[in-house]
C-alpha cells in the first residue's frame, strides 16, 4: 500500500456523479470547429468553401507548438468559414469552420499500427500530432508538444482523479474501455521512456478501479486510489498526493521528471497509434438538475450543445444556467447553439434553486478560511484586498498568477465575496497593463527613430546644399579666372 501525502487545503464536496453507461450521440446537421486554440493561437484552415470532407480528414493545420490540427468528425461539405459564438468565457464570436453533414458518416481509411515499439518515439509523437490529440482533461494542451519535453521523465501519471462535481466522463470511459486506456498508457510510457507509470483514480470510483485492475497485467503500471478531495485532479496537487513532491509555483512538472496525462488522452493516443484514428470524438457528461435524463455521451467534436441536450430528454422547467465543465471551474455559456470542443468534458444545466440567488456580498471579515483551503498555499484575502485597491504590484508579489482558479476560497467565504472573479479581473488588468506598456514603448521607439531619421536627412540635405554651393562657387571662380586670362 503506497503511503499518500496531502496537499494544503482543498475541500470535500459532494460529487453528484452520473453513473449511466455511455451512449452514442446521433449525427447533428452541422459541425462547428472554432479556429482559436490555446494561448491565442489560431489553426489554419486547409479546406475551401464547398469542399467535400470525410470523417477523420484534417480540415485545419497547426501553425505553432501551441496549436493542434483539427479533423472533421463526420463526412459532409464545408458550408462556411465564418464567426460563430465559441465556447469561451467571453461568449464572443470568432472564426469557425462549419461543416454540413451529409448523413453518410463516410470515413477516411485508418492505418492501424500494432507494433508501435518498432517505431521511434519521434515517429509516434508525429503521429500523435497529426491525429490532433490535445489534453482531454479540459486544458487542451497539444499532447505531442507536451511529450516533446527535453527533460528526463521518470514518472508518467495517468490522471483519472475526476475531482470536480458532476463530471463523470473519465469514470465511464474507464468502465468501458479499460484495455484501451492501459494500451495508451503503455504507448505514452514507451515514448517518454519513463521508468514508472501510475494511474490515479479517486476513492469514490470503485467500479473504475476494478475495471483497471482487471486490465493491468503488466507490473510496470501502478494503480493508486486517492482521497476524493477537490482539487486532487490538478496536476501539481496530484503529484504531491502520489509522491509527496511539491512542484514550486513557477516550475512545470516536467522539470521534476513528472508528466501527467488525462485518462481520456491516453485512450485517444491508443486510438491514434493502434487504430490509426484521428481525434474526432470524446465522452461528454450531460448532467445537472436542469436536464431530464443525465448521461455520458460519446460525442462528435463540433456537435452543437443543443443537439446533446435534445438527446438527453431536453431541459427541465427551472433550468437557469448552462455550464461547460463542472460546477467549480466551468464556463457559463450564453447559448446552446455553441458547439463542443476537444476541451469540453461536461455540459451542466443548473436550475434556479440549485445555484441562483447567491446571497449578497458582505465585507471581508478576515477570517482566513480562504487561505486555509487554498491548494496552492496563497493568501486569497490579501490578493482580494490588493486587487480591489488596484495595487497590482503587490498582487504579483503575492503570486496572483499561481492561482489555479479552483474556486475553493470562493465557496468557503462566509461573506460570499466573488473571489475567483476578482482574481480573474485583476489578472486581466495586469495583462492589459503589460500589453499597453509594450505597445507604448514600441510607439515611442518608432517615434524616436523617426525623429532621428528626419534630423539625419535634414543634415544630409544641408551638407549636400553646402557641397553644391561650394562647387558652384568654385566654377564661378574658375570661369572668372578664365575670362580674365582671355
Amino acid at each position, binding site marked *: 500500500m503506497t503511503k499518500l501525502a496531502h496537499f494544503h487545503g482543498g475541500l470535500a464536496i459532494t460529487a453528484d456523479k452520473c453513473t449511466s453507461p455511455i451512449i452514442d450521440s446521433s449525427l447533428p446537421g452541422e459541425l462547428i470547429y472554432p479556429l*482559436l486554440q490555446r494561448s*491565442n493561437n489560431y489553426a489554419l484552415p486547409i479546406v475551401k468553401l464547398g469542399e467535400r470532407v470525410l470523417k477523420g480528414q484534417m480540415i485545419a493545420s497547426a501553425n505553432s507548438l501551441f496549436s493542434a490540427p483539427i479533423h472533421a468528425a463526420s463526412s459532409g461539405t464545408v458550408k462556411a468559414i465564418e464567426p460563430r459564438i*465559441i465556447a*469561451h*468565457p*467571453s461568449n*464572443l464570436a*470568432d472564426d469557425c469552420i462549419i461543416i454540413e453533414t451529409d448523413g453518410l458518416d463516410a470515413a477516411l481509411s485508418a492505418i492501424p499500427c500494432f507494433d508501435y515499439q518498432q517505431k521511434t518515439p519521434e515517429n509516434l509523437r508525429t503521429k500523435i500530432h497529426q491525429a490532433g490529440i490535445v489534453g482531454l482533461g479540459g486544458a487542451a494542451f497539444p499532447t505531442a508538444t507536451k511529450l516533446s519535453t527535453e527533460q528526463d521523465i521518470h514518472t508518467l501519471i495517468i490522471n483519472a482523479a475526476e475531482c470536480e462535481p458532476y463530471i463523470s466522463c473519465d469514470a465511464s470511459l474507464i468502465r468501458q474501455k479499460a484495455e484501451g486506456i492501459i494500451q495508451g498508457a503503455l504507448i505514452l510510457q514507451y515514448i517518454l521512456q519513463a521508468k514508472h507509470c501510475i494511474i490515479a483514480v479517486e476513492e469514490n470510483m470503485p467500479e473504475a478501479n476494478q475495471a483497471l485492475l482487471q486490465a493491468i497485467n503488466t507490473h510496470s503500471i501502478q494503480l493508486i486510489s486517492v482521497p476524493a478531495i477537490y482539487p486532487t485532479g490538478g496536476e501539481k496537487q496530484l503529484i504531491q498526493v502520489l509522491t509527496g513532491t511539491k512542484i514550486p509555483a513557477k516550475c512545470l512538472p516536467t522539470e521534476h521528471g513528472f508528466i501527467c496525462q488525462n485518462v481520456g488522452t491516453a485512450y485517444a493516443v491508443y486510438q491514434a497509434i493502434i487504430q490509426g484514428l484521428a481525434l474526432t470524438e470524446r465522452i461528454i457528461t450531460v448532467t445537472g438538475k436542469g436536464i431530464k435524463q443525465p448521461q455520458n455521451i460519446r460525442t462528435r467534436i463540433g456537435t452543437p450543445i443543443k443537439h446533446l441536450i435534445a438527446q438527453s430528454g431536453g431541459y427541465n422547467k427551472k433550468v437557469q444556467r448552462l455550464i461547460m465543465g463542472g460546477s467549480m471551474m466551468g464556463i457559463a455559456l450564453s447559448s446552446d447553439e455553441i458547439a463542443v470542443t476537444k476541451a469540453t468534458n461536461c455540459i451542466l444545466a443548473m436550475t434556479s434553486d440549485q445555484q441562483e440567488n447567491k446571497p449578497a*456580498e458582505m465585507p471581508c471579515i478576515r477570517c482566513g478560511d480562504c487561505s486555509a483551503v487554498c491548494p496552492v498555499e496563497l493568501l486569497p484575502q490579501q490578493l482580494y484586498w490588493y486587487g480591489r485597491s488596484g495595487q497590482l504590484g503587490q498582487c504579483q508579489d503575492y503570486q496572483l498568477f499561481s492561482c489555479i482558479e479552483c474556486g475553493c476560497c470562493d465557496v468557503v467565504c462566509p461573506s460570499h465575496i*466573488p473571489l475567483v*472573479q*476578482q482574481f*480573474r*479581473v485583476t*489578472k*486581466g*488588468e495586469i*495583462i*492589459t497593463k503589460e500589453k*499597453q506598456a509594450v*505597445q*507604448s*514603448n*514600441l*510607439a*515611442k521607439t*518608432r*517615434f524616436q*527613430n*523617426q525623429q532621428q531619421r528626419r534630423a539625419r536627412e535634414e543634415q544630409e540635405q544641408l551638407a549636400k546644399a553646402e557641397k553644391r554651393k561650394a562647387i558652384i562657387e568654385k566654377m564661378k571662380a574658375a570661369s572668372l579666372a578664365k575670362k580674365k586670362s582671355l
Partner: protein
Amino acid sequence: MLLLCLIFVMLGLILGFAAQYLKVQGDPIAEQIDALLPQTQCGQCQFPGCKPYAQAIAQGEADINQCPPGGEQTINALASLLGMESKPLNTEFGTIKTPAIAFIIEQDCIGCVKCIPPCPVDAILGAAKQMHTVITSECTGCELCIAPCPVNCIIMLPRENKPSEWQWPAAHD
C-alpha cells in the same frame, strides 16, 4: 556665536557645491511622467509629442488632464505620481474615444504620400503613385493622417473585440 556663524557658512558652501557638482542630468520627473503617457504622439495636448508634454507638466506649464488617448487611467496615474488631486479630462483638448485604428479605403487612394509624413510612428506604408496602407499593428489611433488626405479616404475603425483579447469585467464598482 561666531562658531555658529562659521558652521552655517560651511553648510551653505557645501550645499552650493552639491547643487553644482551633484546635479542630476536631465529631468527625472519628466522621464517618469513620460513613462505614464500613452505615446500616441498625437498632439491633442497642444504639444508636439508626449515627451514635450511631459516636460511641460514637470515645469508646471501644463495641467495633467490634457491627454485624451490616455484617458482617466493616465490622469489618475499622473495625479498619483505628482501627489495631486485627480481631475476629469479637460474636454478643450479632446474627448475620450473608443480605441480605433486608421484604415485607408484603397479604392479611393490616389497615392499622393500626403498622409505619410504626419504619422508619428511610420505606420503608413506607401510611395508616390503606389497604394498606401496602414500597418495596423503599429497604428496608435492618433488620427493625424486623416486631415492631410485630399480625398478623405482614411477612416477610423474601432478595434475588433476578439476573444483572445477579452478580459473578465469587474464584478462591481
